[in-house]
């Protein structure tokens, strides 16, 4: 029986390969990875680093990977924070808060993510030019051209480096296992301090520390410009994903034994202290495994960027396929990249979970 499976699999693979060879020669397609060195000659919507249409395929694909990781990372952070907030609201005793949180979860969890992304994108694109922009306290603006946010006065490359540094600091803090709130404060304070220090040193000569967006004539100058594709994608994944994270968090909090909470009350701890020192640390053990799956889902969900024209790795790959015809190589690269990304996330969450388990004596 096993031998039969092996034989059938080998036969299928052999048949597929010989067919592919036959089809490739029939269609005059070449195989191999030589095309990666060629220039692409086409443009796309978004990149964190310098790019031109003369870039090689390898570099363009790298930018796509960077975009996917960037959006995925931001969404993982925003959904986790937002999801913890909503999940906690579903767990508290106040009826109005519970109601509001469950309305949120029931609306955003039960509509397909891609529909939310396309809908949001359509609303944003109809918002009109910078002159009709919605202003938030005159430091942030939202218009049909995208969101303008205040930012540090540094180049995009430095900003990416700072993001990576903040990520590394987070991992280091998890390794060091401080108390939850102290760890969070150290991470936020450390990242912010580092960013400010770097901006102080690296900002352009004679300019201010922060760059604020300002309406000049028909367009905005200064600040960080977030294109609507990116904004809609991040907003949609965050809205959808945090509804799921909220359910995970609620489930985790509900599993904390009641006796522990009552013990905290008997000790006279405040409700916030019970939440942060008893409930969350205990709940994390059952939250982390499904949360890790949710993180993997979020990484995969960035691929719907293609529906609204955001140039993530999938978008770049599909474009590269239609332009170069190197279907097999590009699809294989895409799949291997996603396997590698998701395997790393799984390894990270497994390791995190192992660290957080209670030590049995």
């Amino acid at each position, binding site marked *: *029986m*096993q031998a039969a*499976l*092996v034989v059938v*699999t080998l036969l299928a693979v052999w*048949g*597929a*390969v010989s*067919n*592919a060879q036959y*089809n*490739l020669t029939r269609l005059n397609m070449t195989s191999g990875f030589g095309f990666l060195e060629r220039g692409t000659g086409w443009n796309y919507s978004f990149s964190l680093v310098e790019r031109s249409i003369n870039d090689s395929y390898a570099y363009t694909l790298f930018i796509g990977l960077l975009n996917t990781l960037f959006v995925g990372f931001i969404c993982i952070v925003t959904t986790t924070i937002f999801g913890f907030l909503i999940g906690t609201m579903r767990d508290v*005793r*106040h*009826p*109005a*808060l519970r*109601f*509001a949180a469950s*309305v949120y979860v*029931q*609306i955003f*969890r*039960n*509509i*397909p*993510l*891609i*529909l*939310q992304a*396309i*809908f949001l994108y*359509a*609303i944003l694109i*109809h918002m009109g030019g910078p002159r009709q922009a919605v202003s938030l306290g005159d430091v942030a603006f939202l218009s049909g051209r995208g969101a303008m946010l205040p930012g540090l006065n540094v180049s995009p490359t430095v900003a990416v480096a700072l993001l990576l540094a903040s990520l590394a600091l987070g991992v280091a803090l998890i390794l060091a296992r401080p108390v939850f709130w102290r760890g969070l404060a150290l991470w936020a304070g450390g990242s912010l301090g580092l960013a400010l220090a770097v901006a102080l040193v690296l900002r352009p000569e004679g300019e201010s520390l922060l760059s604020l967006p300002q309406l000049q004539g028909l367009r905005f100058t200064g600040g960080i410009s977030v294109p609507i594709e990116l904004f809609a994608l991040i907003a949609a994944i965050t809205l959808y994903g945090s509804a799921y994270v909220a359910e995970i968090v609620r489930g985790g909090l509900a599993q904390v034994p009641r006796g522990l909470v009552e013990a905290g009350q008997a000790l006279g701890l405040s409700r916030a202290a019970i939440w942060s020192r008893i409930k969350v640390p205990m709940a994390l053990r059952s939250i982390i495994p499904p949360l890790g799956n949710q993180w*993997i889902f979020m990484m*995969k*969900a960035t*691929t*719907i960027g*293609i*529906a609204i024209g955001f140039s993530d790795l*999938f978008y770049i790959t*599909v474009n590269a*396929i239609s332009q170069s015809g190197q*279907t*097999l190589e590009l*699809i294989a690269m*895409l*799949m291997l990249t*996603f*396997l590698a990304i*998701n*395997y790393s996330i799984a390894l990270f969450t497994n390791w995190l979970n192992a660290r957080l388990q209670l030590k049995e004596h």
Partner: protein
Amino acid sequence: MAVAEIIPPSRFETSRRLFLKRGFGSPGSLAISVVVFVVLGWIAWSFLDWAVLRAVWRQENVEACGQGGACWAVIDARHRLILFGTYPFGEHWRSALAALAIIATVVLSCLPAMWQARRLAALWVLGFASYYLLMEGSLLGLPQVTTDGWGGLSLTLFLFAAVVLLGMPMGLGLALMRRSEMPVVRWFAMGLIDTIRSLPLVTTLFTAAVVVPLFLPSWLEGDKIWRVIIAFALFFACYQAEVFRGGFQAIPKGQVEAGKALGLGYWSILGRIVLPQVFRHALPSTINMVVVTFKETAIVTIIGFFDILASGKTAFGTAEWAPYYIEVYLFVAAIYWVFIFSLGQYGEYLKRRMTLSER
């Protein structure tokens, strides 16, 4: 002492008191209640005002649109396009009937009387077959409409039913292979399950639509829609296999050993002892998986199918209706929401009922 004093208050009375105490008992909780009430009330009122009070409903009154209210006239005029896509206009009754057949299949499977593998399989095959016969038509002597002409809600329901129908046995097969005592079979299943689960659904479907034809001889290529359905079913099966695995793990080993001691063979033990319990244990997660699948069918719009999302886009694609994209998207979102919410609530109810019965 009066008896009334020691009778505890009714459950309703207790929860009412708790509700009042927790929501309005202290100045802080009262303030939170007021803020939430005002914010939610404002959102609800603005939506109601826009969507109902100032809305235009009939397409005859379309001139009144665009004055601060919703323009449901676009739905009145274009709902057939959204629901049935480019299906021939005169044959729309077939598309509607076919969609109803799928919905009826889903509703009937929710009845406990149907919860036997054979009945469920028969029901789904029957529902799917009646959909196909009605939509395709040539076997019933109706004008033939090929799959290219299918679209809208009907196509979404078709993809959903086909994926569940094909994916369920595939998932069971993969779960059995994963538990097999033969290492090669086990590794094969594990490799397949882990790979498909790590890849985004879009890439799997895109591969099936664009890449797979390169590997297949032309006689095996088939329609694009069937290749995508099979890939989607494989995706479903890989997740469902993990659901079944959870069900298998819940069954004590002693039961299988008892079966062996009675001299039963592998298939008898599986079919008569193990599987009935596996299905029961896996039911809530299976419903969850079915709900997720329905939601994920929206992805096929990316690889160029004319599902309800694409037909919705077409519905406001003309100059006359272009300003009313919000109404169309809300209409489509509401359809998805009703299906997904009600199935999800049913799953929750079932989970509660089953945990109660296990106590």
